[in-house]
């Protein structure tokens, strides 16, 4: 399978300055439905994401958030426009990208450690170094002693932690997360949100996070991209100017509430209607 040679910035920027890692230019997806009609899920979507950023994608259900993620993951060809990742055109089997789904999607026939190793196994034989790295990642997500267990022996939150460890095994530059904490109970979710920030701080991954929680988007992101209802377009891009590192105290920051209200207005307010 052809691989993109290596990551090159879209715009050669002076060293030290942030570099664009992901660019969607007029990207659009139109599905042909079973009844033969065309359904435009995403239309004229433009977004640039810098190396190391956390960007959240929020919007009404069915507005095309998952479709945007699937385009970046190479699971969905854009029917319009272009997508560049690190300067290369997006292709299938591009291991600079990893995806975390809402459900952990651990393979029930493999131990937790082997699940973490699965992306390696999909490409080649695993080595002792791979296994050591998988163990390290399990330790990073707090599952150091769970590698030998089978997935069903883990709670939902632990399973999702294992799936995050798995997404990091090929050391991708970009982590695509589709409502990764959406299926977890509130306490586990809060716990894992901060853990994700720790992982981001220690690995410097670029993260594109789909979430249906406006608070989560503001808490975690450098920028929040708000999408309009179908056809999904980028409606507004909001910089979250709250100092890092963020903690659960962050929601008490004076600006926090303004941001959540602005996003909420964007989704539900009269502005949202005029675009749709």
């Amino acid at each position, binding site marked *: *399978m052809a691989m993109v040679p290596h990551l090159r910035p879209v715009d050669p920027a002076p060293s030290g300055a942030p570099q664009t890692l992901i660019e969607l230019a007029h990207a659009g997806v139109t599905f042909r439905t079973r009844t033969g009609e065309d359904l435009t899920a995403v239309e004229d979507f433009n977004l640039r994401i810098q190396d190391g950023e956390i960007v959240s994608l929020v919007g009404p259900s069915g507005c095309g958030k998952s479709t945007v993620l*699937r385009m970046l*993951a*190479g*699971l969905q060809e854009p029917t319009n426009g272009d997508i560049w990742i690190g300067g290369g055109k997006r292709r*299938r*089997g*591009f*291991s600079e*990208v*990893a*995806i975390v*789904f809402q*459900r952990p*999607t651990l*393979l*029930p*026939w493999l131990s937790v450690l082997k699940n973490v190793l*699965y*992306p*390696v*196994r*999909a*490409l080649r034989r695993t080595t002792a170094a791979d296994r050591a790295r998988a163990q390290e990642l399990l330790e990073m997500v707090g599952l150091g002693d769970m590698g030998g267990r*089978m997935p*069903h022996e883990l709670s*939902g939150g632990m399973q999702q932690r294992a799936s995050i460890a798995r997404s990091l095994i*090929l050391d991708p530059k970009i982590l695509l997360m589709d409502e990764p904490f959406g299926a977890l109970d509130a306490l586990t979710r809060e716990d894992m949100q901060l853990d994700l920030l720790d992982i981001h701080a220690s690995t410097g991954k670029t993260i594109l996070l789909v979430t249906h929680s406006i608070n989560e988007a503001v808490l975690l992101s450098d920028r929040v991209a708000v999408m309009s209802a179908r056809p999904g377009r980028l409606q507004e891009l909001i910089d979250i100017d709250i100092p890092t590192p963020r903690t659960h105290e962050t929601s008490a920051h004076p600006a926090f509430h303004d941001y959540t209200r602005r996003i909420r207005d964007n989704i539900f307010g009269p502005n949202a209607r005029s675009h749709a």
Partner: protein
Amino acid sequence: MSPAARKIVLPILAFALFIGLWELISVSLEIPVYLLPSPSAIWEGGAKLGTSLFTNTAVTLKTILLGFALSCAVGIPLGVLVSVNRLTSEAIYPLIVFLNAIPIISIAPILVVIFGTDETTRLIIVTLTAFFPIMVATATGIMDTPQEMLDLSRVAGAGPLTEILTIRLPHAVPFIFGGLRIGVTVAVIGAVVAEFVNANRGLGYLVTSSTAQFAIPTAMACVVMLAVVSVILYEAVNWTHRLLFGWSLRNDPGK
């Protein structure tokens, strides 16, 4: 009595009661042995065969096992082939359904003429009987693979073959074992049919030859032996499933 013990003791009691009643009715109503032999008559009929009952069982068992192995070797890859790709599916599936629609008992004598009177023909008959449920179960399991698992392997860069071997086939394991359970029972029937039309040994042959000589209790003893073989093979498939693929026995609706 503990539930576990009850699960063993109750069926044994019921079985013993069934045999006892059968014996009682045959003796008290004086039912002729050629209409319905009593359990004790069947026992004597079997005893008359001596060790040849067991050597013939071994012959039939060998046909069943080889034929069943062939059915797996044909059924599982075919199941993958018809489910993994639309083109192959649309091309081959109708043909296979047609092949399966042929009543095996009607084509068995013809197969003997084509392939001769040896073990090969019997194995072909067993395979034709047993591959279909295995194939259908495999195809069902392959198609049941959750989209997210496939997405996972694609994002990692797995090719189509890796995807089948590391995702689709393992996911299909519990389905395949469902097919194997049916397949192994059907293989017993296939072996008996094959021996009816073409054999000078084996339990199926003993049933026809004993019946021809009105030795009904002996024929019945062979039938009982066939049932025992069938049950043991069915359980053997279950043991294999539990032993090698224990993970697939739990039904986790969360996945």
